């Protein structure tokens, strides 16, 4: 097409770490694009670093001095000769100043225009924009007086219960539910500290809390030529402290007519934002079936953690499409060609101890074996032998199960979790299994407070069976590990792992 403004992407810097960096590096390789990893001192030997064609050190372990340091990341991109930067999710992905710094350096930002991040990043601006575009919104505001008293007064005017959250970002960081004026002071201070630590900006937003909603979000995608499509919904109601734990598509609560209205609203929202590339419009869904009402919550101007469930039911590759659209290609799909087929469930595997108040866990991955089989996908940022530290988000991997029906997808996820041994640090796998097997989840009846309300029954530690004790007895001192070749093309590994790894478990 003569009107297309094509750019060639030859080398992409991936400004992230963990599983999403691995996901993007793989997509680059498939597309014939060179990848550049970045790493802090804590990640010098991380999976994503070894996988990329090149790697650049960007600073010491603390994220503020490495993965959140715009100057360091842009310098690394220029130094490595990259022509584009993919931000992943989290870290700098929703920082308009980062997108702008990338673009003013003459590089392509694989994501929306900086101005769209800015528009949707400001909650107050986004709401006004949505209201103007005819997208339903929840009552709330960013109080101009940001003192404890100013926030408390704003809360009082909206009426308890309210939600307080970071004005600058998503992901549940800094978010608190305040049920009455008595709790307000302590919770406001904590929300502000977390907001400042996570986003470098402690500005708070206060909003009316809709009780027992579902969290349903629409994947949208826009190109340089004004086309925007939606790729249906993801239901993310299984959250704990506003951090998503299990996501699925389709939503068990969505009637076709409501899905169609939400899709249209999501496209209107993205168009109003002047959006380009992959993004997500989050909605709160109140009620079920044809009567359900939905409210715009926020837009995540980036790829989502849970994007694989959309990929599983639509058959598209969202990261590949991000690369193509960033290079100036038109959207690879027309709305009419997109279909939801089957059912997909994603479980986030966290290094945390559910029976100790979900305390993040640090330590060595003495054993880590991923499940596989039809309809099973694991996106991981770690390998066996890695040392899990405390510097970053405790998510180790995502397990995605897809099958023809919802019950079959849940069964497949359950079987796969039971075949996902991780030892050396505690993970939330036992918790995830209790969640997926809970009757309310099986019926598709869970709302956003389900996990918090059922925490006790979902986190009670199990008693060791005779079989578990027997397994411990013969654990011995030997740890078996898959043989790892020294280098590709080097000497073949020993056929017998036992001969190589005696006493590997320290």
């Amino acid at each position: 097409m003569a009107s297309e403004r094509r750019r060639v992407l030859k080398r992409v810097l991936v400004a992230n770490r963990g599983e999403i960096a691995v996901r993007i590096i793989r997509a680059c390789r498939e597309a014939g694009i060179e990848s550049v990893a970045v790493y802090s001192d804590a990640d010098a030997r991380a999976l994503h670093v070894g996988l990329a064609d090149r790697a650049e050190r960007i600073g010491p372990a603390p994220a503020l001095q490495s993965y959140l340091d715009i100057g360091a990341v842009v310098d690394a991109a220029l130094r490595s000769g990259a022509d584009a930067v993919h931000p992943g999710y989290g870290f700098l992905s929703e920082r308009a100043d980062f997108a702008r710094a990338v673009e003013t350096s003459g590089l392509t930002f694989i994501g929306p225009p900086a101005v769209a991040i800015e528009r949707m990043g400001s909650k107050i601006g986004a709401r006004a924009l949505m209201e103007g575009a005819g997208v339903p919104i929840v009552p709330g505001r960013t109080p101009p007086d940001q003192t404890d008293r100013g926030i408390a007064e704003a809360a009082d005017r909206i009426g308890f219960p309210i939600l307080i959250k970071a004005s600058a970002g998503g992901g549940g960081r800094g978010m608190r539910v305040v049920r009455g004026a008595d709790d307000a002071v302590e919770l406001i201070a904590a929300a502000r500290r977390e907001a400042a630590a996570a986003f470098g900006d402690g500005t708070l937003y206060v909003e009316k809390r809709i009780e027992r909603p579902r969290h349903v979000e629409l994947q949208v995608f826009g190109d340089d030529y004004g086309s925007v499509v939606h790729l249906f919904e993801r239901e993310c109601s299984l959250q704990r402290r506003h951090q998503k734990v299990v996501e699925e598509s389709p939503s068990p609560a969505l009637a076709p007519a409501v899905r169609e209205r939400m899709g249209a609203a999501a496209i209107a929202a993205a168009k109003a934002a002047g959006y380009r590339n992959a993004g997500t419009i989050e909605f709160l869904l109140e009620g079920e079936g044809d009567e359900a009402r939905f409210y715009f919550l926020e837009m995540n101007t980036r790829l989502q953690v849970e994007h694989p469930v959309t990929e599983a039911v639509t058959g598209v590759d969202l990261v590949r499409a991000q690369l193509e659209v960033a290079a100036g290609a038109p959207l690879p799909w027309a709305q009419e060609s997109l279909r939801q087929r089957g059912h997909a469930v994603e479980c986030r595997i966290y290094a945390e101890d559910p029976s100790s108040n979900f305390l993040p866990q640090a330590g060595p991955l003495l054993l880590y074996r991923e499940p596989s089989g039809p309809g099973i996908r694991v996106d991981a940022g770690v390998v066996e032998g890695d040392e899990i530290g405390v510097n970053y988000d405790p998510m180790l991997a995502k397990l995605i199960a897809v099958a023809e029906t919802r019950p079959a997808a849940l069964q497949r996820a359950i079987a796969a979790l039971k075949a996902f041994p991780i030892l050396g640090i505690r993970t939330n796998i036992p918790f995830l299994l209790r969640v997926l097997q809970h009757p309310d989840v099986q019926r598709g009846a869970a709302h956003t407070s389900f996990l918090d309300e059922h925490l006790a029954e979902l986190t009670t530690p199990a008693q060791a069976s005779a079989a578990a004790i027997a397994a411990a007895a013969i654990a011995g001192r030997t740890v078996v590990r898959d043989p790892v070749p020294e280098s590709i093309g080097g000497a073949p590994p020993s056929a017998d792992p036992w001969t190589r790894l005696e006493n590997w478990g320290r």
Partner: protein
Amino acid sequence: MSDQALLLRDAFGAEHRVDTTAEGVRVEGALVRAERQPSGAIRLEDGRVHLAWAVSSGDTRWVFIDGEVFVFETGRPLARRRRESAAQGSLTAPMPATVRQVVVSPGARVQQGDVLLVLEAMKMELPIRAPGDGTVAAVKCRQGELVQAGQELIELEP
């Protein structure tokens, strides 16, 4: 494999006596057939078949079976050591973390459940609360300090 007796302590503090024999493992009298698979997994039969994974690290034994994880100790009773230290009134860091905020000063009267300080690890805040009523005898960490697991943070007196 020669016959071998072993005492395993589970996370609840219960002790289990096991004997490893040629046929399998005898757990408090009952025989569980156990066999290492070439994959490294352990196939167990106790009326049902389970595929488990187990590793050891120092005195700790980790087991993954049917989606559950169990940790056993073969050495000194760790839980008892922790309880003793709590009885002496010192509060220790549960994991490596950054001290985000120190709420109390030496001499402060605190009640059970009061937040004494706030740690941050992996971007999550972990409030450290008073286990009982008392007086803060000493604050042994500073805001911004990186503390290690087990490091003493605050000393409380009844």
